[in-house]
């Protein structure tokens, strides 16, 4: 019933494993492990690619050249960066809450890795196509607030604490409009299943049916992933680096990895929810369309981030509560009316 190169590859792998092992449960387990490994690899690679991409794109926007010394055209720059980070001394400041401090970067990486299980990369290519996919996705992404707060609290630094508190404030202010914005999609699809949401866009993408929700989503997505112009949690000119002020070396690299993973996540989510996921003209396989759209989205988010100055905390929060939330509610109402009219006709 599914088509596509990735799906048939997976099927043939499953057949080979079945003929070798025979026990269905073991085959399922093996397949899951293989999938999870591939997803983690995608995440790690994306961090490497985006480090370079971010630096090159940012350099282009800022009329600079960017890294061009390590490897041909600076291609190996991100590898060099990673090696440098691993080589750094692991500084543990005095007076910290040791356990919370150590756990914070690790816990931050867990939700960002976990949500990759719910992304439909191609027709039928999704690790966990659960019935409450979208709901789980939102629930898991909002977990990233906790590690930030933990890190901010545990660092015993005022800058970190302010950053940690800002995370909570912005999560409260922007999670709500985001959920209401996505409600429109769920109303049209009639399902929270990720594959069903993509399936529903085979004719018309949701960006056409839900333009308001799309606008709200890109703003809230920037906030959720701490990208500029809404990176008040990091706020490097005010509070140094917010919750990760006191982290160095690999611990800091984990925050960094999570940030890039989140950037790709919002790119993927924008693609999946509004831009038709893997749908596209037939001359390219579905997963190619998926990645092309994702990269374009990421490019867009980076472009926005490198152009605008940072919003201030109070104006940002009042914008979330007083502007985005009412618009999101109106969108829900309009969608309801639209569906009713459509059904009557």
């Amino acid at each position, binding site marked *: 019933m599914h088509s596509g190169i990735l799906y048939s590859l997976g099927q043939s792998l499953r057949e080979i494993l079945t003929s070798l092992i025979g026990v269905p449960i073991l085959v399922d387990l093996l397949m899951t492990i293989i999938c999870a490994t591939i997803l983690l690899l995608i995440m790690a690679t994306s961090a490497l690619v985006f480090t370079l991409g971010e630096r090159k794109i940012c350099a282009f926007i800022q009329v600079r050249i960017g890294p061009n010394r390590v490897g041909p055209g600076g291609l190996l720059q991100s590898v060099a960066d990673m090696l440098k980070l691993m080589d750094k001394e692991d500084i543990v400041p005095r007076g910290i809450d040791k356990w919370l401090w150590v756990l914070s970067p690790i816990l931050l990486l867990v939700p960002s890795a976990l949500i990759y299980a719910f992304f439909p990369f191609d027709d039928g290519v999704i690790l966990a196509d659960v019935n409450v996919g979208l709901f789980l996705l939102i629930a898991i992404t909002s977990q990233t607030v906790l590690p930030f707060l933990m890190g901010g609290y545990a660092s015993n630094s005022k800058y970190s604490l302010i950053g940690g508190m800002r995370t909570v404030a912005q999560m409260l202010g922007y999670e709500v409009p985001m959920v209401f914005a996505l409600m429109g999609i769920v109303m049209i699809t009639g399902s929270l299943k990720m594959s069903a949401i993509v399936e529903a866009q085979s004719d018309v993408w949701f960006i056409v049916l839900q333009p308001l929700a799309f606008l709200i989503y890109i703003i809230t997505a920037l906030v959720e992933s701490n990208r500029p*112009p809404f990176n008040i949690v990091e706020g490097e000119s*005010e509070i140094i680096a917010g919750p990760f002020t006191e982290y160095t070396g690999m611990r800091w690299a984990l925050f960094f990895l999570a940030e890039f993973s989140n950037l790709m996540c919002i790119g993927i989510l924008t693609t999946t929810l509004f831009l038709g996921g893997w749908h596209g003209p037939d001359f390219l396989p579905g997963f190619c369309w998926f990645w092309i759209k994702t990269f374009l989205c990421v490019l867009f988010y980076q472009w926005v981030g490198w152009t605008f100055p*940072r919003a201030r905390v109070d104006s940002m929060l009042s914008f979330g509560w007083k502007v985005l939330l009412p618009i999101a509610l109106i969108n829900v109402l309009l969608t309801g009316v639209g569906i009713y009219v459509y059904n009557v006709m």
Partner: protein
Amino acid sequence: MAQTEKYVLNMGPQHPSTHGVLQVQVELDGENIVGAKPVMGYLHRGIEKLMESRTYVQCVPFTDRLDYVSAMNNNLGFCMAVEKLAGIEVPERAEYIRVICAELNRIASHHVFIGSLTNDLGSATGMIYAFRDREKILDLFNIICGARMTAHYIRIGGVAADAQDEFLRDTQKFIDYVPEMLDEYNKLFSGNEIFQARMKKTSIITKEMALKFGMSGPNIRASGVDYDIRKIDKYGAYGKFDFEVPLGKRGDNWDRYMIRMKEIAESAKIIQQALDNMPEGPYMAKVPKVLRPPKGDAYHRVENTRGELGFYIVSDGSTKPYRVHIRRPSFVNLQALDTMCKGMLLADAVTAFATIDPLMGEVDC
């Protein structure tokens, strides 16, 4: 029962947004600022004292290091004070070259202002654009005297070397580029919604407050006080040029930013006039090899990029000044920081600091 208390946050001396080594002890209630106390002295080099043990000619390079992003203006202030003291007549061509250099340096310094302001607002892109254009001016200085920042080009009695045709030609090229440059800045930040929201109606200094603090330069003009030494004293060749002094209305961050944007255009206007009417002649007056100004004292003030820069020199008739006192505009302007920050948010402290535009080399002296 929840309990809250105020706390003190030490911003700096190691902080990305203090433009050097200033420490600001910010008293915070949550994110609201209750008070902000600037603590300075981290860059104190004792320049006033050092000058007492150098000859007048040797003193000039120290002035480069006061406000190191507008070195030419400082050179000008000190040299004119010594010339007043020793009664040296400066040739007209030298006066014109001095004006060109001082105004170019004013533009360069405003580039640093725009760059660091946008960087503090969280847009590193703005900084790169401003610094890209500042580089053009530094290249001009490189042509005329071989130095980029600490130029030491304006000397007692004139300037160090004549302005070559190459310099005049490239300066003309830069002046032609200025409107395009300002247009780009306006597109990039001035029209930006977030930028305006952060700048407008924040950190207001009223006319009365500005006068009470003894502020000067673009900061006091943003509050609506028409106070520009170039117009009042008409020192050097400034009396011969036609230019306007832009004034603000509200005295908020936005006014302080817009004043500087307009000043860039005015400076370009002055340079254009100086280029068009450049007289021929010597570039240096006859100054004795060993300069011994007569006993007495002299005060001369110039409009530095940041405000009123004054040099008070006391001579005891020897080759070295007996005492030098420098009236540094940044130092005086910085007083307003506490008033500007009160009742604002932590993010505004950074903006307020950036729009006062103090330079720590000058504050600490």
